[in-house]
């Protein structure tokens, strides 16, 4: 009975949706259709990025304009490591984890003690400094040309076949998503949600808000960096663009589109965002206009994002009980 209760507590709409999505992504590889696999890969990478971003934004309630920094750190870690130290994409991607951890802690120490508004500005400032450094430190980073020739075929793994790389990404995607799902269900998930709900109360329960914010930032930073690392291997090239602040704002937009107070909101947002940007590319000149209009519409009318909209629809038809999607 007890085990059954535990199990039931772990299962909700999110995990079912997640498993279905992972299955669907797996199936896409069987079509062998290059373009679908291309889009799916980008969805996975940006899904990871947005889900990582939302740990800080949706859970802990901290708005970061500097997540391009973490994505960039991941991307450049894998590039520098595979080109200079050890030629293997898997080891390279894994190498980005400790680097991202270290970066997150340093960023946290610099930004987390000064309140939310200053956090937003400081993260923006740090990512601008990082971006400038990538351009100026030409001997190390290749300047604005970036680094090319990041290997897909390495000493340990060979990801040069598209399907193999696809599965490689899928494994990371599935592991990270299931990890975040477990986090959401764990005590840390609860603490992070409490942080976003009423952080001023937590010290009187004996919690240090700085420590909790640091945990949120570290998880967020590492997950975002993993997205960057996969991105670098996928394109075999990195340029400073990935650390530019507008790039770092994309996961924010994705979170808002999908619904930042829903566990899967950022992922849903990434699916919409990537699908639109890759298929409607010929509308590129109107992209900023469309995006701006969409954002205004979201903020004014659908602040819960797409999932919030669906939830209110479901509520109207008394289906609310079947949709336990909030985190």
């Amino acid at each position: 009975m007890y085990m059954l209760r535990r199990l039931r507590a772990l299962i909700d709409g999110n995990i079912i949706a997640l498993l279905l999505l992972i299955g669907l992504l797996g199936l896409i590889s069987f079509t062998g259709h290059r373009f679908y696999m291309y889009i799916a890969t980008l969805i996975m990478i940006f899904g990871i990025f947005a889900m990582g971003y939302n740990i800080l934004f949706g859970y802990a309630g901290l708005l970061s304009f500097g997540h391009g920094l973490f994505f960039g750190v991941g991307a450049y870690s894998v590039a520098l490591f595979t080109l200079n130290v050890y030629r293997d994409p898997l080891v390279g991607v894994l190498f980005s984890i400790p680097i991202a951890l270290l970066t997150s802690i340093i960023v946290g120490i610099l930004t987390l003690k000064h309140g939310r508004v200053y956090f937003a500005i400081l993260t923006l400032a740090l990512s601008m400094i990082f971006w400038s450094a990538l351009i100026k430190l030409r001997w190390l980073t290749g300047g604005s040309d970036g680094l090319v020739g990041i290997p897909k075929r390495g000493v340990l793994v060979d990801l040069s076949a598209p399907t193999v790389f696809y599965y490689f990404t899928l494994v990371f995607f599935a592991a990270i998503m299931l990890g975040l799902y477990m986090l959401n269900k764990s005590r840390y998930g609860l603490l992070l949600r409490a942080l976003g709900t009423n952080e001023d109360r937590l010290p009187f329960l004996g919690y240090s808000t700085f420590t909790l914010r640091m945990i949120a930032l570290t998880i967020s930073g590492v997950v975002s960096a993993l997205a960057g690392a996969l991105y670098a291997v996928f394109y075999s090239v990195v340029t400073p663009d990935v650390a530019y602040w507008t790039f770092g704002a994309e996961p924010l937009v994705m979170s808002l589109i999908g619904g930042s107070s829903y566990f899967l909101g950022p992922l849903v947002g990434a699916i919409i965002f990537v699908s639109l940007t890759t298929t409607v590319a010929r509308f590129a000149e109107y992209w900023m206009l469309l995006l701006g209009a969409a954002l205004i519409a979201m903020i004014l009318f659908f602040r819960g994002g797409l999932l919030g909209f669906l939830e209110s629809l479901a509520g109207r038809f008394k289906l609310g009980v079947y949709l336990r999607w909030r985190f």
Partner: protein
Amino acid sequence: MEILRVENITKRFGRFVAVDNVSFTISKGETVAIIGPNGAGKTTLVNVITKKLEPDGGRVFFDGIDITRLPPQKISRLGLIRTFQVVNLFPVLKVRENLALAGLRAGTTGEVESVAEILGIKRYLDKRLVEVPLGVQKLVELGISLLLKPKMLILDEPVAGLGAEDRFNMVKVLLELKKSLNLIVIEHDMDVVFTLVDRIIVMDKGRIIADGKPENIRENKLVKEIYLGGE
């Protein structure tokens, strides 16, 4: 044996002195009420003691430790727990999750159900805090405090805004609690105060104007004038 010593605490807001050179000592086992008219500085005093606010002067000792410079989370971990006058919890989280936050911190997760049982809020455990009545929210505040295993509990107006029945429940619980921990209540309801405490500290305009046994306070002329007024 003393548990709390407040020495010359002063708190200003700009030029306004909200707490003016307040000192007192509370012994282990004592149950104390702090009363006084609106704006007397009661909440501000508690805010300074628990470091919601920084004092402008003075020192606070709890259980033999100088806590004047400690951050609120350290004070909380020493066992000095407070509640807030206006319910200050986690509205979108379930009642159970609100309680679990305290349980996780103090290693008392296993007691969440039994505390909810004692407080009579078990049937609300799986509702979000915003969905339950104010009386229940106040009991959740109390439940959180209990799960933190306090040595001293400061309650800022525990029955304010409650109906007769909730009020009765709360007092019943507090009467039981005062046996096992040091209770300080800030309260306007004199029935509650006289039922509950062994000692009353009266504040007015930031100062302590009387401090003594309930029966003496009831007879104190100054107090009658300033506070009990009409009665």
